[in-house]
């Protein structure tokens, strides 16, 4: 494998341009800008790795998010710096030729290739709900992970199970980390994840040759260390008690906090409030819609997107009605027993 530095020089990038690239990369990876020279040094020496991308039970939204930019951007240079040897949406080959390319890459770079996975893996009924080339996703994942240096679970489906895993989970969908136990797994959740977060994580691995620091859910701390609420620009309104009551009311138009409209910002870890989407254009709250909590596990099953975070699943009116009936019955029974005792004591007088 040639080094990344060589690849860039070969493509006519001057040293000055390379240093500019590394400065941008350092910012992308949420590292302090003073680290740019170290990044440059590491990147110049890093090997150009083979990357195999497996798409399982997914909607292709993660690929869409990553490849949105059609003009050559620094983010896309990342994709140019890797040898993307297998990707259903982006590759030209198909059928047996594609599978052959994948197997070839896995053999040639055994122990060194990076495995990217998007989509969850259906496991019910022997895994028949997801197959290609006659093999189940379960088998493909486990075989592909054997020779991988690391696995990156891209998107909420691969990281936590996502939409397929939502109640009642008919296909037995499971996240990558449930099935791959003996390799380092980086979770990059989001529905979809922010493009620069995905490339930033890849860049970190390419530059330093190791996975970044992860939180308890296996997410890179650099991007998932804080909640949306911690960095939300509408925070002053939250603190002052200025909340929008309905969509498009006066408060909503003045940009007030969306807590009452169901925003899950306080419990959601992601970089949306600072990095934002589409090169820093906006993010859901800025556009007037509360955070769905899409980078947290099982966010589909955590109650309505439009009910405030403080409203819990306390049951329903019917359950409370039954509870009330039970309480009344218990009270009546207790009173009956009490009365009998009262009568008995009365007789003893």
């Amino acid at each position: 494998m040639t080094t990344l530095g060589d690849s860039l020089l070969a493509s006519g990038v001057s040293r000055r341009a390379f240093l500019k690239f590394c400065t941008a990369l350092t910012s992308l990876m949420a590292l302090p800008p003073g680290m740019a020279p170290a990044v440059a040094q590491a990147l110049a020496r890093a090997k150009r790795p083979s990357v195999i991308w497996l798409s399982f039970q997914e909607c292709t939204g993660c690929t869409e998010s990553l490849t949105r930019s059609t003009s050559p951007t620094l983010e896309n240079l990342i994709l140019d710096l890797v040898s993307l040897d297998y990707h259903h949406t982006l590759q030209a080959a198909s059928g047996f030729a594609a599978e052959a390319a994948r197997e070839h890459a896995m053999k040639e770079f055994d122990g060194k290739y990076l495995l990217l996975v998007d989509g969850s893996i259906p496991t019910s009924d022997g895994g028949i709900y997801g197959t290609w080339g006659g093999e189940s996703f379960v088998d493909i994942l486990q075989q592909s992970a054997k020779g991988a240096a690391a696995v990156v679970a891209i998107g909420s489906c691969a990281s936590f199970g996502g939409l397929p895993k939502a109640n009642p989970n008919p296909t037995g969908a499971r996240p990558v980390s449930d099935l791959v136990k003996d390799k380092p797994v980086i979770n990059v959740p989001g529905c979809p994840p922010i493009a620069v977060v995905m490339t930033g994580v890849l860049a970190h691995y390419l530059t330093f040759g190791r996975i970044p620091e992860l939180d308890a859910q296996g997410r890179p701390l650099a991007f998932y260390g804080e909640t949306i609420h911690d960095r939300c620009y509408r925070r002053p309104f939250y603190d002052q008690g200025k909340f929008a009551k309905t969509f498009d009311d006066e408060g909503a138009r003045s940009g007030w906090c969306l807590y009452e409209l169901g925003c899950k910002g306080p419990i959601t870890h992601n970089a949306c409030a600072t990095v934002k989407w589409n090169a820093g254009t906006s993010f859901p709250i800025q556009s007037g819609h509360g955070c769905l909590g899409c980078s947290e596990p099982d966010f589909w099953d955590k109650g309505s997107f439009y009910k405030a975070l403080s409203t819990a699943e306390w049951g329903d009116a019917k359950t409370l009605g039954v509870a009330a009936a039970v309480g009344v019955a218990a009270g009546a029974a207790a009173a009956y027993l009490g009365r009998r005792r009262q009568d008995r004591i009365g007789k003893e007088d």
Partner: protein
Amino acid sequence: MNAIDRIGVKVIAAADIPTGNVKPLLFELAGMLEAWLSKGEPASIDLRSLPLTRGDYTELEAALGSGAVSASVEAIGASEVRETRYPGVWRVMHRNEAGEVVADLLEVCGLPEILRAPAEDAADGLIRLKEALQP
């Protein structure tokens, strides 16, 4: 008039409110300038890592102003280097070929690294100059 045109739209002002984050930033720059003057240590701040609103950027630009030097660099996209009214404090904005900002830094140093000619590029240039001088 379309029904859609009759929907009143209010431009959200919240994104333009200065949050008061500029003052501490200026204090940090003062500290960095002092460190550079006394110990020769350069330093930089990645503006995009801070929660700054549009209003904050306006306030910051007004506070820093512009100084004696401005330069533009063409390297996989345009980059702009501008000395602020405080010599040694530079605003360096890197853009890609699509014009999107890929890094926005405040550097405290004698000269931002991007302006220096790297030895490798100069060596390449020397080869080309010698070729051009051949009869």
